[in-house]
């Protein structure tokens, strides 16, 4: 039995350079790195010193606040560098990989008989836990709180993102194992959503509530689905996990091995042959970037999709949660009378001498230019057209900007993550940094209310 969710509000951003459905194995990387910025709100305490050897799956550090939560190395090798920033904050951990990979093997729990406590401890110790994120606050799940439900979105709507239907094809067993384990951690349901048109292995999972989603982006964002299925109330917690992370968690539960392997889409108009690569978390992006080839020297490389990813460069590493790497042109050039001439080659949410409404299915080659300057909020009613949640987006953003905690709570900040505001940010006429505003709002709320 499945339920249908139809999203009407939204906007599909069609871009050139979608990854073709072919997968190659990326050459193995020399070094692998964990970027600490991926783990929002975690204060690392190192378990391994610079120069020491680790196995794949061996803990590198734990969180200062939740000490049983281990973060493990994706490969075996020598911890060659701890990159530190201002006030000696750890930024990146680099591991020089061994030629022969040596895995740390854990004793696996019996999925049929294990209880919640046992599974929790196992995931925390083996490095599988950080894949679970929680709302409110969009941070790694707090193991001391019980979620009312767990949400998994198997529907891809973000521009150029890896198509989950394709990536997950033969991962049924692993995902089922992870879902079986997660089901024991919540008294509520596990909500899995798939595209209405499409064929996902997630449809055949046992022990889940299946939802078939249709509609434009952000229908595929888990936040949109939570809002439609079972919104978060104050005091409640829900967990979310992405399907590609379920695969790693599942393998960890079945074999006792932390196998950081992941299928990653390399996409974007700058890439000559956009396609999929099998690589590992933390791998050097250059190991597969140049295999596909790039069309120009200067471009924006993004860990993730174009709306929510983080900026990186050709020396960067694949992020902990990312299954997409995108390369698009930089837009650091002036445009003569760009603000008043008719525009045919860029996407617009209005029809003010912009003509993208004529061809809704045309694929665009957009660059990173902001197409205008930062301004105060002026126009109204535009965000609502691409924001399907039952929340007033403009008012919530303003509440975050003025740090009004009561308003933030009442207007629904507990229900959102920064990525839910990626589309309103895209169409914002005042070029305001929505995701940053929401992130700062969430951090403040967590700090003040906890």
């Amino acid at each position: 039995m499945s339920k249908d969710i139809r999203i009407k509000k939204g906007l599909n951003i069609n871009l050139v350079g979608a990854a073709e459905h072919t997968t190659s194995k990326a050459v193995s990387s020399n070094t692998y790195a964990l970027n600490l910025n991926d783990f929002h709100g975690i204060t690392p305490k190192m378990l391994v010193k610079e120069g020491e050897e680790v196995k794949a799956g061996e803990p590198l550090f734990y969180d200062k606040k939740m000490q049983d939560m281990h973060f493990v190395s994706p490969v075996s090798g020598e911890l060659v560098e701890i990159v530190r920033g201002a006030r000696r904050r750890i930024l990146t951990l680099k591991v020089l990989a061994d030629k022969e990979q040596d895995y740390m093997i854990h004793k696996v729990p019996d999925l049929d008989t294990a209880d919640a406590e046992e599974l929790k401890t196992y995931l925390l110790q083996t490095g599988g836990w950080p894949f679970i994120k929680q709302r409110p606050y969009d941070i790694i799940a707090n193991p001391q709180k019980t979620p009312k439900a767990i949400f998994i979105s198997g529907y891809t709507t973000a521009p150029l993102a890896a198509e989950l239907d394709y990536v997950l094809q033969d991962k049924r067993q692993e995902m089922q194992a992870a879902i079986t384990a997660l089901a024991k951690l919540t008294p509520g349901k596990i909500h899995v959503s798939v595209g209405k048109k499409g064929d996902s292995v997630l449809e055949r999972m046992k022990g889940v509530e299946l939802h078939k989603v249709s509609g434009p982006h952000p229908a595929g964002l888990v936040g949109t689905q939570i809002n439609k299925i079972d919104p978060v109330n104050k005091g409640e917690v829900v967990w979310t996990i992405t399907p590609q992370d379920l695969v790693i968690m599942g393998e960890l539960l079945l074999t006792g091995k932390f196998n950081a392997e992941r299928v990653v889409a390399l996409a974007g108009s700058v890439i000559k042959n956009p396609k999929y690569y099998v690589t590992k978390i933390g791998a050097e992006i250059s190991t597969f970037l140049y295999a596909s080839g790039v069309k120009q020297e200067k471009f924006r490389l993004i860990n993730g999709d174009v709306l929510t990813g983080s900026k990186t460069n050709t020396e960067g590493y694949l992020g902990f949660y990312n299954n997409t790497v995108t390369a698009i042109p930089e837009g650091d050039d002036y445009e003569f009378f760009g603000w008043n001439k008719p525009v045919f080659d860029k996407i617009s949410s209005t029809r003010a001498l912009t003509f993208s409404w004529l061809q809704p299915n045309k694929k665009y080659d957009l660059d990173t230019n902001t197409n205008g300057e930062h301004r105060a909020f002026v126009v109204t009613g535009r965000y609502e057209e691409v924001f399907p949640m039952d929340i007033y987006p403009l008012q919530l953003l303003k509440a975050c900007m003025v740090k009004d905690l009561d308003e933030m709570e009442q207007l629904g900040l507990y229900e959102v993550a920064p990525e839910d505001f990626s589309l309103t940010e895209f169409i914002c006429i005042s070029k305001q940094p929505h995701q940053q505003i929401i992130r700062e709002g969430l951090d403040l709320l967590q700090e003040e209310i906890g």
Partner: protein
Amino acid sequence: MGLKEKMHEIKLKYQGKKMAPAFNAFHTFLFTPNETTHSGSHLRAVDDLKRTMNTVILALVPCLLFGIFNAGYQHYSAINGFPENFSLFEHFINWENFILGATTVLPLVVVSYGVGLLVEFIFAVIKGHEVEEGYLVTGMLVPLIVPIDTPLWMLAVAVVFGVVIGKEVFGGTGMNILNPALTIRAFLFFAYPTWMSGDKVWVHDAVERAGTADAISGETILGYLAQGNNTEMYAKYDLSEMFFGFIPGSVGETSTLLILLGGLFLIFTKIASWRIMLSAVLGSLAMGLIFNMVVDFGWIPEYSKFYGLMSFDFWQHLIVGGLAFGIVYMATDPVTGSQTNKGKWIYGFLIGFISVMIRVFNPGYPEGVFLAILLMNVFAPTIDHYVIRGNVRRRMKRMKNATILPDTVDGAGAELKAETV
């Protein structure tokens, strides 16, 4: 290509200096900047505030052109009498009208933009923020909503007042409570009431000639109606003249046809809210109908001073005076209007409703649109507040019915629920 590089060099030279905003205003007028995204979405849609404001100005240009020709037409018709068989190209669109209109209207435009932008630049330089685009539209609206013979010094004083008190003291574009163009109009009206009303200011030269042998009248339709001279008015103007705009009035507000087209353009481009426009039209029709009914029931005697406007057909309110112009270009200002979709319906409806009410009951000056919009500007945040409370209440109710799991062992969840219920 030379210009682009040269401007870029100057920009780098000025960076961080006091005068940077002034230069950047010119620079970004010529070129969209080379800024790229830093955080969040790596892509941005093409629309920006300049394009938005530019679209509104495009929608106003027909009104301005019509206003120029109409200035000449009204002036010469007042002197020589209205032409018998009116022909658009013979009597309206001709050089004579254009030259007279251009010499009277364009100075208003120049003063409005010149003074207003100067104030904006000064504030931008002092406060170190970029020159925002809000005044591009305000500067165009102002000459269109004032009487043709408004002395330029009065206009300049009003613009300074409107921009400083109406906008900059609140923090500039996007922060103001009152529509700046209407603040300017209201300032003119209350500071120089004898100039801004009566039957002399609406046609060029009428004030100068008053009391001489060549005296001409420039009574507006609302002026006639306010005095109860309905039959006289209908004898002079027919409905098509009112709709097409060949009547005396503020510079750009007479042609309902062009305003309608401008409004449709703004709705099509998604720049202005159709909700506000539609509900304002409905609101004014509703109030007009109520007054018509009052007259039909015979509650108002014919000698009453309200009779003229009360008996005026309800839908004709929309084609005379500034109502249509106000609804399309002023009520839809997103900064000072309601910001929620539901709120926009209420806000628009009340603007139309109150506009017609003020028309009928205001003894001194029969046009009530600008007062109605300013009044609703003040109440827009209140309307939004109650609309948003609806959303908040829904969230509260949902929480009340939820079974909140104890977040730790001590049952703090239950406590939490009790405290907020």
